[in-house]
């Protein structure tokens, strides 16, 4: 296998021209990163802010109003409905207008002032188990603080837990999600552009033209993949810049750590793309195969479903998923400023997986183009 740099360069030029001539591909390369960033930066949000709340206040005293104010002042809750009828609470939760219901009974203020404990009823919509869990936690904390402020001396001193979150002090989910988009997007580009590009040539019959050209299979492979790798790197750089400047995601690590991981990851993605192109006869098939590969690799990557919560069987599978390791590297580099010594584990696995996939692609590819 000998490589001619000149021939590869010509092939890359041809590929780039072909890629950018197609309106759809152009859209894919330039528009889909923006759409994904907006969606994952703004829509994928697990922060609890402005959780909707319905208040049924039977007491109508200053103390009761102060309790409701404590909820709204925290910024986590927003009162959407006030009523004196318990049925309003049920209706609001049933309709989904409110996620949390607070019912303050008569004599609330009186009980609070006297010795007896004052009871309030707190109802949380559990349909969304994520927000439900967190809202319940916040509500409990708000009421504890309220009790401590309004009944000084009566709340006994106990253990005082002081929590500090590192790397992301406000626990914003965006800080976690946006760097992850890099991994998903680069994979999407690598798969879609390589898999479809080769199959399209076959469908159009231009693959035969390439075969009669003096290009060797290795040159053909490089010619097909290099432009996509370039696009992948450009996309990655764009997202990184937007993440830092627009979404203010901290970038604490070094590009020199990120880059080698990205290169290995891109090699893995391109290899899978080439492999798909060798087992698909039509673009239709290639697209479906790609979808069937992409879906599990993203779900099992920890992109937004936590790996720790998966059953052992699926947790084991994720070890063979390059997306998982790359995402761990990206997030650690962005948020923790991690270096090789903390990430060598991921690097080794990425290297192993990338070489395996490249091996399969190199083995299959020349056969399918007929050499």
């Amino acid at each position: 296998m000998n490589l001619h740099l000149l021939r590869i360069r010509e092939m890359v030029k041809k590929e780039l021209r072909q890629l950018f001539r197609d309106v759809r591909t152009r859209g894919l390369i330039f528009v889909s990163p923006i759409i994904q960033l907006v969606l994952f930066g703004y829509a994928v949000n697990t922060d609890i802010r402005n959780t909707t709340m319905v208040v049924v206040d039977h007491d109508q005293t200053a103390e009761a109003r102060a309790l409701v104010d404590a909820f709204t002042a925290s910024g986590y809750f927003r009162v959407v409905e006030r009523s004196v009828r318990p049925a309003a609470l049920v209706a609001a939760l049933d309709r989904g207008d409110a996620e949390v219901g607070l019912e303050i009974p008569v004599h609330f203020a009186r009980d609070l002032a006297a010795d007896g404990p004052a009871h309030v009823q707190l109802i949380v919509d559990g349909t969304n188990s994520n927000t439900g869990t967190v809202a319940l936690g916040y509500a409990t904390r708000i009421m504890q603080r309220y009790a401590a402020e309004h009944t000084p001396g009566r709340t006994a001193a106990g253990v005082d837990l002081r929590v500090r979150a590192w790397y992301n002090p406000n626990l914003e989910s965006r800080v976690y999600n946006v760097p992850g988009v890099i991994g998903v997007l680069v994979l999407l580009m690598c798969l879609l552009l390589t898999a479809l590009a080769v199959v399209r040539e076959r469908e159009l019959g231009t693959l035969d033209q390439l075969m009669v050209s003096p290009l060797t299979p290795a040159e053909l492979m490089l010619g097909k993949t290099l432009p996509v790798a370039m696009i992948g790197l450009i996309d990655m750089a764009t997202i990184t810049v937007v993440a830092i400047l627009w979404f203010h995601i901290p970038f604490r690590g070094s590009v020199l750590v990120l880059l080698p991981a990205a290169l290995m990851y891109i090699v893995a993605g391109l290899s899978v793309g080439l492999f798909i192109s060798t087992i698909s006869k039509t673009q239709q098939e290639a697209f479906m195969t790609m979808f069937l590969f992409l879906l599990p690799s993203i779900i099992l990557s920890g992109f937004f479903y936590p790996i720790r919560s998966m059953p052992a069987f699926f947790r084991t599978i994720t070890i063979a998923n390059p997306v998982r390791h790359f995402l761990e590297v990206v997030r650690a580099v962005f948020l923790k400023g991690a270096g090789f010594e903390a990430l060598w584990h991921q690097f080794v696995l990425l290297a192993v997986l990338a070489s395996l996939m490249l091996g399969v692609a190199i083995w299959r590819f020349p056969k399918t183009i007929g050499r």
Partner: protein
Amino acid sequence: MSPHRLLAVARKETIQLRRDPRSLILAFLLPIALILFFGYAISFDVKNISLGVLDRSNTNESRRLIEAFTSSGYFTVTERLARYDDADAALADGRAQLILIIPPDFQKNLDAGRPAPVQALLDGGDANTATIAQNYADAIVAGYSADVVLAGRRVAPPLVADARVWYNEALESRNMIVPGLIAVIMSIIAAMLTALTIAREWERGTMEQLAATPVHRLEVVLGKLVPYVGIGLFDVTLAVVAGIVIFQVPFRGNVILLAVMTFLFLVGALGLGMFISAAVKSQVLATQAAMVATYLPALLLSGFIFSIATMPLPLRLITYIVPARYYVTVTKGVFLKGVGFNVLWPDAVAMIVFATMGLTLAIRAFHKEIA
């Protein structure tokens, strides 16, 4: 419009579908496979949070506090630290997600009735898990604190919140995921199924034949729809049964209501697919467009996992034109809340609008093609 001709088209479409094994697999196996895969793999229930402990008090009380963490079932002690400086590395490497630091004077403070501060360092990198871990830690410490304090002297707490979770009492993420998943998967599958149907006729050249028959375009569109509505209803039935039997999700609502709503939703989603198919004329393009139009919006903008109320206003407005949004409300409402038509009628209206729009667009796009 003649029901006879309509049924003839439906029969033709069914025969054609039966001969296409790939479409059949897509129609019958993929939905249930995805439900099983997602249902088993995804969970947001945070368990086994890795806990690092720096116990500088090393007394009975401090050991009891640590035990309170481990016996809760949410935390597993993975690291015992000797020095404060080790905390940094343990968090950075991901060996611990939460580090509990108990100061030397912990027991002395408790004995003296003074507040005893305890520090918790949290890996905020994964904001979602971190928030939940923080809530658990708070609850555990509060419980422990109450035990210790109450053991010393009897003081009734001034404020008691009777917190209750409705609809999903144990806050299990599976109960949230499975009903929403049915909606998300069906919106993707439905659009993909019909995306091919008109484009296929066009690519195979059978479109002229169809145009030459005395069949009205309304009959063609509705006739083509019939077998797919049947498949869709079958898929949903299978998914609902799997949800109830395999995943033990409570089903509290009315089956007939769900069936009617599903029918409305399917007509809209299938109509959308048919419109795409008629508009782009190529099978490859049609599948891709169907995927783009349904996949990410259904996943991220439907309220399936990410709550719509917390999104910024422009995205919130966009969710109104995502049909999956209404169907997610319906499946969750019928499964978990057991609500009836009196609550779900706005969603029914929205889905009727979508169905009418989908069909009208499909019929109009189809018309242009024949002419």
